[in-house]
């Protein structure tokens, strides 16, 4: 596909949306520069949600700081606390028990399921296809109850702690059985959804070829996660993470990078998540779930990257007498903002919101750091 080039000359008509706008759930500002209802350039401004989590974490004991990272995002909260604990574990050389790794993987994959289902439901809602949206919301509710069963809360489970998982999140036979049965139910429901979704010619014609992002551009913009894989680049950090060593799964890619590819991509990736959870249920080892056998010492800056539902998540901090210093967090949506702007170019104004939603934005996560410009 040809490269789409944003126009540099002055475009007269500007359509601003936001910061609070009915079409967008989260507060952010987007300006579309249009000619004849065709978007020529888009500009997304964030910063409305900035709350300064890194600043609050600075100087907190590392256990408290880990718990605080959950409050960054209500959708991928487990990923944040997982990666934050993982950072300290890498720095302090803590060996976590095998059973804890399995439970973390189960939680991570359940979260991927609920995040992808939310994406599919939200995408169908923006497409104005309410029936599909409701079907997915109904499936998502099964996953939410599983998360509540293991973590004790529907959002923000606080599953990982330093050295393993919280003893409350240990899974027994009954919980594993329910997990297994519900995975069957989710798979059945999702199969039905995907069959109907792909067979619906009205929806397919509405989304095919809209908001295309060529893979060269995607790499240039450093897009991550499913949005990158939907352009045909098989890059998934789970293949390199030691937690996933014992699991067998495929990296799903889709060819086009348009809205259809993105939606189908998420649906197919959900099947892989179900596969991973089934393997974890079958092979979960016995033993304790948390190790208290470690010592705190000062470290240099530690870095950790994991694959979360939306892409690559980066946490880094140094430890100084048990306290967190120089914390930096980078969330996947930060990298995907470029893709959102780019996908809008050349599309109808009515499709522009769909093009933003196809990149799975989460602006709450994204409002991380502010740059102070002195003039």
């Amino acid at each position, binding site marked *: 596909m040809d490269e789409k080039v944003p126009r540099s000359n002055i475009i007269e008509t500007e359509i601003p949306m936001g*910061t*609070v706008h009915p079409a967008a759930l989260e507060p952010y500002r987007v300006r579309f520069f249009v000619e004849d209802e065709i978007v020529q350039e888009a500009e997304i401004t964030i*910063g*409305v949600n900035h*709350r300064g989590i890194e*600043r*609050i974490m600075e100087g907190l004991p590392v256990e408290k700081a880990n718990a605080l990272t959950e*409050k960054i995002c209500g959708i991928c909260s487990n990923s944040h606390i997982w990666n934050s604990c993982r950072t300290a574990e890498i720095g302090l050389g803590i060996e976590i028990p095998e059973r804890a790794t399995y439970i973390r993987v189960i939680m991570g994959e359940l979260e991927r399921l609920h995040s992808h289902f939310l994406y599919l439901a939200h995408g169908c809602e923006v497409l104005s296809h309410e029936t599909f949206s409701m079907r997915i*919301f109904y499936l998502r509710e099964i996953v939410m109850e599983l998360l509540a069963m293991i973590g004790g809360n529907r*959002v923000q489970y606080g599953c990982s702690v330093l050295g393993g998982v919280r003893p409350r999140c240990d899974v027994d036979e009954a919980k594993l059985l329910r997990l297994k049965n519900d995975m069957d139910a989710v798979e059945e429901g999702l199969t039905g959804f995907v069959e109907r979704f792909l067979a619906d010619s009205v929806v397919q014609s509405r989304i095919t070829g809209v908001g295309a992002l060529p893979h060269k551009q995607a790499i240039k913009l450093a897009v991550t996660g499913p949005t990158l894989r939907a352009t045909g680049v098989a890059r998934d950090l789970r293949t390199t993470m030691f937690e996933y060593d014992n699991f067998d799964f495929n990296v799903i890619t889709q060819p086009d990078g348009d809205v259809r590819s993105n939606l189908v991509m998420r649906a197919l990736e959900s099947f892989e998540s179900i596969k991973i959870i089934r393997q974890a249920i079958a092979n979960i080892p016995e033993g304790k779930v948390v190790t208290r056998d470690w010592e705190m010492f000062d470290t240099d800056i530690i870095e950790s990257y994991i694959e979360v539902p939306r892409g690559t998540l980066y946490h880094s901090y140094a430890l100084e007498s048990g306290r967190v210093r120089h914390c930096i967090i980078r969330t996947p949506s930060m990298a995907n903002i470029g893709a959102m702007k780019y996908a809008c170019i050349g599309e109808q104004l009515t499709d522009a919101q769909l093009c933003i939603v196809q990149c799975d934005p989460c602006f709450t996560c994204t409002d991380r750091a502010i740059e102070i410009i002195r003039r």
Partner: protein
Amino acid sequence: MGLKSFSRARAIHVMLVYTGGCNGCDIEIVNSILSPRFDAEQYNVFLTWNPREADVLVVTGPVTHLNRKPLEEIYKAIPNPKLVVAAGSCALMGGVYKNCYGDIPSEEIEGPVENIIPVDAKVPGCAVRPQDVLAGVVSLLPILLDAD
């Protein structure tokens, strides 16, 4: 029951405004009204994004500085009688973000919501449970229906 109350009882519109929380409460509230499991629409409660047709305003989040003015304007745009539900611990007391600079008052966080607009019902929780949101909205309905 007057004609206005009679018709209002058959279509209560809830508007959700999001002022910089973590998205958790936000999705749970949308979920509790829209999703087939909880389905507040069966009680004639509808979700709207237009303040001019809203009856109940549900606010989540600790109200960041940049969100203060939009929140006030949305509140002004809602016709009387209007009710406000503050949902989630951020909206009730600023949550974990309120005292982010220790003893120095934070310029970033303007909340809790009570400081900015009058609040009629408070729904606690981090994140709020859908059942609690429904209970909070339903507890306000008598005030709304007796208004005229």
